């Protein structure tokens, strides 16, 4: 039986922002790899959707991008979190903790 869950709607933005906050500037592939590591086998990350997520975050000016060179000497687009992005992350992380707490309490057997 398959136990890997799809990513909850809207949480990918949160995870990408958190990753960039923790690890500093990263390219899309780096973000994907990091999420794979963190998620291990519990979560399916369609790597393509990360790029769509990056487009959305760019539009909202939560992240910025710059072309640079990767560790293995390839041209890559590096994303870093902006000030607005940090504020958003704080907001969303708090709300996530609150909601997951509620959900946890609801699901807890008496």
């Amino acid at each position, binding site marked *: 039986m398959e136990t890997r869950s799809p990513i909850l709607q809207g949480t990918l933005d949160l995870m990408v922002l958190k990753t960039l906050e923790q690890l500093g500037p990263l390219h899309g592939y780096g973000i994907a790899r990091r999420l794979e590591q963190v998620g291990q086998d519990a979560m399916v990350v369609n790597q*393509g959707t990360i790029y769509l997520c990056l487009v959305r975050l760019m*539009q909202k*000016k939560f992240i910025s991008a710059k072309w640079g060179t990767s560790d293995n000497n390839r041209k890559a687009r590096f994303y870093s979190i902006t000030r607005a992005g940090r504020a958003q992350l704080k907001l969303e992380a708090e709300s996530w903790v609150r909601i997951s707490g509620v959900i946890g309490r609801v699901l807890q057997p008496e």
Partner: protein
Amino acid sequence: MPSVYVALARLAGFFRPHRHDVEFHLELREHIAMAIDDKMRGGLPPEEARRTVLVELGGVTQLREEARAARGLPWLDGLLLDLKLAIRQLRRNTGFTIAAVVTLALGIGANAAMFSVVRGVLLRPLPNDDEAHLLYLRQSASGLGVENAWFSVPEINDLRGRLTKITRLAEFSTTQPTLFGLGEAREVRSGVVDGGFFEVMGLRASLGRLIGPADDGPGVPGVVVLTHRFWNGALGSDPTVIGKAVRLGGQSATVIGVLEPAAPYPEETEIIANMVTSPHHLSATMVTEREHRMTEVFGRMAPNTDLAAVRAELQTAYGGIQRSYPEIYTPHARFQLNVVPLREQLNSRATTILTVLLVAAGLIFVVACANVINLVLARTARRESELAVRAALLPSTMAVRRTLLVESLLLCSVGATAGVVIAQPMVSLLARFTARYSVRAVDFQLDATPLWIGVALALVAAVLLAFAPSLPKPGRAVQRSTGTSARRLQVFAIAQIAASFMLLSGAAAVVRTLLALEQTSPGFQTANVLAVNLPPGGLGRTAAQTLTFYRNVRARLGELPDVAHVVIGSNVPWRDIGGGPTRLNPRPGGMQFTAEGAAAAPSGEKPQARGRAVSSGFFSALGIRILAGREFNDNDTAGAERVVIVSASVAAALFPGQDAVNRQFRWSDPVARLVNFSEEPRRIIGVVADIDDEQVDPQTNMTVYHPFEQEVAGGRLFVVTRGTKPYALVSQVERIVKGLAPTQPVEQASTLEDIRAQVLSPARVNTIVLGVFASVALLISVIGIGAVLAFSVSGRTREFGVRLAIGSPPKQLLLIVLKQGAVIVAAGIVAGVALGWALTRVAGAYIPGMQSPGAAALTGATALLVTTGLGAALGPAIRAARTNPVRALKYE
């Protein structure tokens, strides 16, 4: 804030899709390369590594599409694509596009023009302050056949004393003095008003000041206000006129101001003057005699009241006045008092005709839309396979609808643009036409109304067009639905015929009215009769000098070689109407008269007649038949025996079946005394045929003629010429008259024929406008029938082929198609008769004078539609009969 950024980013993305796309592509390529490197380092063979990476990433093409959608404005992209497709479609089907655009342009243009005229003429508020409270009062006496009886000073004073819900009443009456001192002397129409008039009307001065309460009463100086039109036109907007001394007949006055542009009512006058300029207005009879009515009355409604309350109070007050003077307000006369808002009164005449034209324009729009819908339906039927493929490919039927909507929007906006363009000249034309019905159209100005009407109608039409065709169901793939289309086509064709039928019968009715009017003989000669106004007053001549002047004019002009007759009368037919009370016609409906030994009317009704004054030779010069006795001659002078000539109906009323000549006639009207008409008997010396010099549609009317020398009035010169160019004489007439009296006004030279044509022109323009509307509708719907039948024939090619193959004669196929056409036309006409009947019923309840066009018009419209409809069916029918069976069976 982020949402603003997103919107901006999307907008940027929409306009610069390429750059972002390339970046995204590069980024993905690097991602794939890095991932493959990693996998290979993990021990996977290159091919395997590549495959895994691509699977993990998801479809690259789809990803790029999604990113593009997220970056740009996908719906706009879709719309642009649809628009591109639509343009290509419309350009490929030139014939369809031109037919649809022209039809829509006509439909939208006609409506845009009509709506803006209606808005400008009927709906626009008056320039008067607080115009909603401005009222117009009218006294009528239907028992005497008097629609507008005017008011006398005692009546106005009584009303003033009894009304609280009308704060103030204003008086206006018309006189026709000769104005000296502003350029050439000229006869003008002058509104004589009281000091409160302008305040009640809520009008201001453009220049100088207006007449106020200080200008009331007998002892004040005469003052004159110029109307804006007169000042602007005849006086060339000369600002120095203020303060000029002028003379109105014998009364001196000063020009004190120019009135702002305003809708003139009840009559267009050149000037407005205070009471003192018209001596008659201050005379004892005028002020004290209840039956001496010559004034129109306006009022201002008190604040915090409504029309119903005003009416109720007015009826109570009027009832009280009537009870106080039962000998004047007799039951037989049926006196009534009515009050309406001034705007309603101003619009009353234009409302009917404009409503009719608006309905006509609406019908044109229906016909146009139905026709374009038919074109679209026929085309959709041909495009069914294309639409089915699209329906299969596109996510929903809504997307197919959107494609159709974009197409019809494009079509309709092109049509609307063309329509608005043709609406502009139509609006000015219609406004000029409407000016004959409403003074408000005179200062009509073109605004943006046609534009937004055009836009609105285009939207309506576009939605109709997009939702008319039934779409192929996506599930059922390509499938013929020609049956449904054909049925819908027929329904719309029938709708077109019905609308055209209504228009045609309306047009036929106005054509009939016009023909009837043009064919009625006025009873006198109009061609080669030149009428010139030589008003007698104000020149300071004695009575004898005035008579000598006219005698000299007649003698001198009579010497000219081209002149057959020169006679004088008091009224130019059809032109000298209105203008307020005169001595010969002191009140509407004429004066009462009696005669020795006359038969009394069975109802006790006192007959009334119009008064006229004509010179010797007048009747023979104009070709009016003398039925008995003689006409006036040069012996009927001021000092001679008082004589009159009566019209046939006067003779018939007084002496039915007997000879009226040599009987004694007397004006018995109480008003006669007030205007210094002696009640002494006058001998009837002749009887002439009835003529109507007021209406082109002659009504029987009683007229009594006085010798001009015994009752000088009007001073209208009639020159009957021998040649065919009467206007060539005008300069000679002017020169001779000015030679005899240098300051004498010589005005408005025109042949009677031209005056009649001018009076007839509203009927003529009615006919033209409705005729054009109806022809357009007829043309469109005939094309519509042809298109429907052609479509049906092409859809039934196979059937026809089979019929021919099994031995049907071609003539039978011809009849089948013709029959189909006949059924559409017949159904359309039946629907048209029914709708038209309902329309006249409904509209008739709101618009007075709305009537059914009559049997002749209905028959004419039917005949025309049947002929042209079958004519249009003939083409497709012949094509059906000529079907080649072999090819028809191979077809499809």
